[in-house]
């Protein structure tokens, strides 16, 4: 790869040009992250009247707490289900739209609509439809013989948050998959077709491998999404319940910090969460990216 070399006349100019970016990173990322790390070593009363250094106490308490470990398990199930469901469905829709010749713009527009809906609104929407007392889907399920109650049944609640969180993300994934599909040269598929490969074989041997950069990118984005961005969805649908069945890590940070006013523990949880996402991103780029063909 060749890089263009720029020569600056002044030695300070390059620093000046990069300064706004550096300032933003410092103010909005490094500084809050440093604050979180600092706070995770402290124990404070809610009003901040007495602060004490407790070392790693907040961390050891977390790792000793069965609730926290349970929250881990819940997060893994939630993240994998949401990423799989939203990426799978999005790919299905994208392939379908890609094959449509007439009116595919309309389908595209309709499919990306949910992305414009705020997460909290999306959550409330699904909460309404599945509400055990007044939900329309609950009623439909009852007719089919399923007694839906996400207020008491942990599995039902998990299905609800996965659906609500995926519904929004499908639009985003769809858009990228569609763009990816449309950039695959038609000649490759035609050549495979001439060689006698059926549509399914063509998809798995030709199209899908060529989509791997898109899929990889979406995997990174989706995991980050489920880890951080799903807070509003969980808050609006189940609020982490019933009995912590949907209490994902990011929601627990909020609950312990903002509701419980236990800032030290909440900060320690944020730091752990930050570490997990860094680790995941690292693993993804280090190991999975090798299998990606650009």
């Amino acid at each position, binding site marked *: 790869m060749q890089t263009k070399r720029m020569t600056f006349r002044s030695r300070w100019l390059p620093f000046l040009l990069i300064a706004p970016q550096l300032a933003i990173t410092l103010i909005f990322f490094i500084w809050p992250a440093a604050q979180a790390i600092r706070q995770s070593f402290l*124990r404070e009363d809610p009003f901040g*009247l007495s602060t004490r250094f407790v070392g790693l106490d907040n961390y050891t308490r977390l790792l000793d707490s069965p609730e926290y470990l349970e929250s881990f398990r819940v997060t893994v199930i939630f993240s994998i289900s949401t990423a799989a469901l939203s990426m799978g469905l999005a790919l299905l829709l994208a392939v379908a739209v890609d094959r449509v010749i007439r009116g595919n713009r309309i389908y595209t527009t309709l499919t990306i609509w949910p992305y414009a809906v705020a997460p909290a609104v999306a959550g409330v929407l699904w909460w309404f439809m599945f509400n055990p007392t007044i939900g329309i889907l609950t009623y439909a399920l009852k007719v089919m013989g399923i007694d839906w109650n996400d207020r008491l049944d942990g599995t039902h609640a998990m299905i609800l948050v996965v659906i609500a969180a995926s519904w929004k993300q499908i639009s985003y994934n769809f858009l990228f998959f569609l763009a990816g599909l449309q950039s695959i040269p038609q000649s490759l598929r035609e050549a495979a077709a001439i060689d006698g490969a059926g549509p399914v074989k063509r998809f798995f041997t030709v199209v899908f491998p060529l989509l791997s950069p898109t899929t990889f990118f979406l995997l990174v984005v989706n995991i980050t999404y489920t880890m951080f961005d799903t807070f509003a969805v969980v808050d609006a649908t189940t609020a982490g319940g019933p009995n912590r069945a949907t209490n994902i890590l990011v929601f627990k940070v909020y609950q312990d910090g903002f509701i419980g*006013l236990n800032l030290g523990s909440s900060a320690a949880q944020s730091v752990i969460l930050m570490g997990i996402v860094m680790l995941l991103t690292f693993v993804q780029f280090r190991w999975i990216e090798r299998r990606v063909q650009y």
Partner: protein
Amino acid sequence: MKRILIAGLLASAATSAYAQTEVTWWHAMGGELGAKLEEIVEGYNASQDQYHVTPVYKGSYTDTMTSAIAAFRAGEQPDVVQVFEVGTGTMMAAEGAIYPVYKLMEDHGADFDPAAFLPAVVGYYTDTNGNMLSMPFNSSTPILYYNKDAFAAAGLDPETAPTTWEDVEAYSRKIMETGAAECGFTTGWVSWVQLENFSAWHNLEIGTNENGFGSMDSELTVNGAQQVRHWDNLATWQKDGLFKYGGPGGGADAAPAFYAGECAMYMNSSASRAGVVANTDFDLGIGMLPYYDDVEGAPQNSIIGGATLWVLEGQSDAEYDGVADFFSYLSSAEVQADWHQFSGYLPITEAAYELGQEQGYYEANPGTDVAIKQITLNAPTPNSKGLRFGNYVQTRAVIDEEFQALLAGDKTAQEALDAVVERGNALIKDFVDANG
């Protein structure tokens, strides 16, 4: 020259007329209650011209309390904040952040007599020396609402509310068998109604050291035989469909189930009355909470919920003068009687209750005095005076979680309540540790 002088005089007169001291009050009263609260504040602002009180709606009780704490940390706190009863432990422990009301009233020479307040209300908010730390404003207690039409349809006497849990069970069965309603009863605030008030009503201890009043370092004892029996019954009744779970916290699904006629009985705060009346078109009956008649000492008295007003430190003397003056206005019999009759909250002073009686309010509106009769049924015992534990906001969440585990069949009543005690005690320890 003369004209300028007059203009100058006018200007200074104008500024002095506008030199009102601003007092900010953060509250959690939405909807009808919020509108009424603003009306009360407007009444105060119009009654004098020295102070101007501005009420600010901050969302739920939890939101209001946490935003006031965050504001305090940032040095932008309001003068007055409304905090719900379970936040009392946290506020009390925050010495240096709160200005105790008894002291405020003393320092600023306001007209104030703690003895005028109802003992059941004021006992909750006084320290061990009997000093009032916060200003009672909206206190409530849970009562039983029932659908008289459904009772009549089921062949029950619509004028008789169930008095024991045995009645509740038998009536529910009859209601369901006759098809008068789909379910017997539901409840809001499981932790408050079916555990805390249940215990007080049966004169059972909730925690050591007089339910936490005696010392910050107390332990929960809610896993006693009677509480286990009651939760066990609730789980069985839920399985049979007699009882319908209304959700965690306040129980968002409980009210609609009662309003729609799905459940014939409904236990919730006396302050739900305005909402119940506005949303139902059947004949409404009101009764006291049910009890188990084989428990000695039952019924005792119920305990309060709702909120009080806390004054935060760090404001000017002039503002505190305003707060003290406003509090005198707020606790006057006229204002309190009006607020109580409108909302269903308890009258917080004897004078307000007496005023209601003089006005003939309770005769004209049967059932509206059930709450006050229930809370003053007997002189409070150490078990029924209330509760005060640190981190109790989180403990309430724990109670909800364990109740859900019970109803889902994952735990027995004993296991669920043992878990409440164990997890609640850990939270109390954390609190002592952070504040000690």
